[in-house]
């Protein structure tokens, strides 16, 4: 009878545990490796849906104290592998406020890489980004967006959700 090779089995288990630990660590770490503010990966993906406005069908308003951010997405329905435009307009006391260093990032529960886009100023005063997002073959359609920006020297963020349909 062959003698069990305990050392190799233990080594195998150690490698398997290391892989599992690395997988767990990668899933927990922010999706944006660029060292930007805490990413949407862990925060938005794990957030309860009730807390996150859905912009799939209608525009939404994100209230952040005295700051109100209007969020619009289109064309609807939002489709995978298509150019989707995400637009933002921040208001304070009814007046438009430009968001500095504004970046919108997109994640879902399945790791899908980095999808981060800097906002540009549109001619109508809104700030916007176009994003092409992939389709998850597992059938998940729910995506989460996170807007990071600086206002009065302070880093802030706002989250929203949407469903991405198959093209």
């Amino acid at each position, binding site marked *: 009878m062959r003698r069990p090779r305990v050392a190799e089995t233990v080594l*195998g288990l150690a490698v398997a545990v290391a892989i599992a630990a690395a997988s767990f660590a990668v899933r927990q770490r922010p999706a944006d490796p660029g060292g930007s503010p805490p990413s949407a990966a862990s925060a938005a993906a794990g957030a309860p849906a009730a807390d996150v406005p859905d912009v799939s069908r209608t525009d939404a308003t994100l209230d952040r104290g005295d700051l109100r951010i209007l969020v619009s997405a289109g064309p609807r329905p939002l489709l995978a592998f298509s150019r989707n435009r995400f637009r933002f307009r921040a208001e304070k006391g009814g007046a438009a406020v430009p968001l500095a260093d504004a970046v919108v990032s997109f994640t879902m529960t399945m790791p899908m*890489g980095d999808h981060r886009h800097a906002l540009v100023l549109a001619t109508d005063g809104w700030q916007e980004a176009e994003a092409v997002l992939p389709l998850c*073959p597992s*059938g998940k359609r729910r995506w989460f967006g996170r807007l990071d920006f600086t206002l009065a020297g302070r880093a802030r963020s706002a989250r929203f959700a949407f469903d991405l349909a198959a093209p």
Partner: protein
Amino acid sequence: MLNPSVDLLGFLALGFLGGFGHCVGMCAPFVLLVSRRFAAPDAGRAAALGAQLWYTLGRVLTYAVLGALAGLVGGVVELAGSLVGLQRAASVLAGTVLVLEAIVGLAGSGPLARTKGGRLFARVSAALGRRVPGHPFGLGLLLGLLPCGLLYSALIAAVSRGGPLGGALALLAFGLGTAPALLGVSLADDLLARRRALLDRLARLFLLAMGAWFVWTGLRG
């Protein structure tokens, strides 16, 4: 701003991090399949590693071709549309191979092997085996076509590389980045496989579940 430019190191990092966060979960069954199909249990670690390297090379080459296509067409919309049928077929075929491999493996060492059903599964598996690549490099070429969200993300980013060469290099870097995680799975499997009996059965059950999932994904589209 659409498709921010990502440098080659960025693609490598996407593959490396995604390899642990995504590929280990989704592609581990294929790594197990390659080890079991192309390296005999007693052939040694070098044989298993060799099979895995050939498989990885094939997979990375397919990624590079897809990257070149993405760079060439300048968008993933057209590419995704033209690939969808091929990817579904690859998913169904790969899933079917996994399921049969798992069933034959589960039945092979037990009393089921001597039953009519066990022999039927073995015949079907052998027949299917003649239709799938007989070398890990070929299997890698085929399985590189599997529908994969992380691969789609890399292709979307590769569009901004400005041409077929840039797209190919980007996806080459991405594919190479995924290799350490999957080779790690192979190494763990090889080392753990010294305790064949229980672990092998668990691995087969894993293959069975993932194979069924791939078939379902491919059929559902």
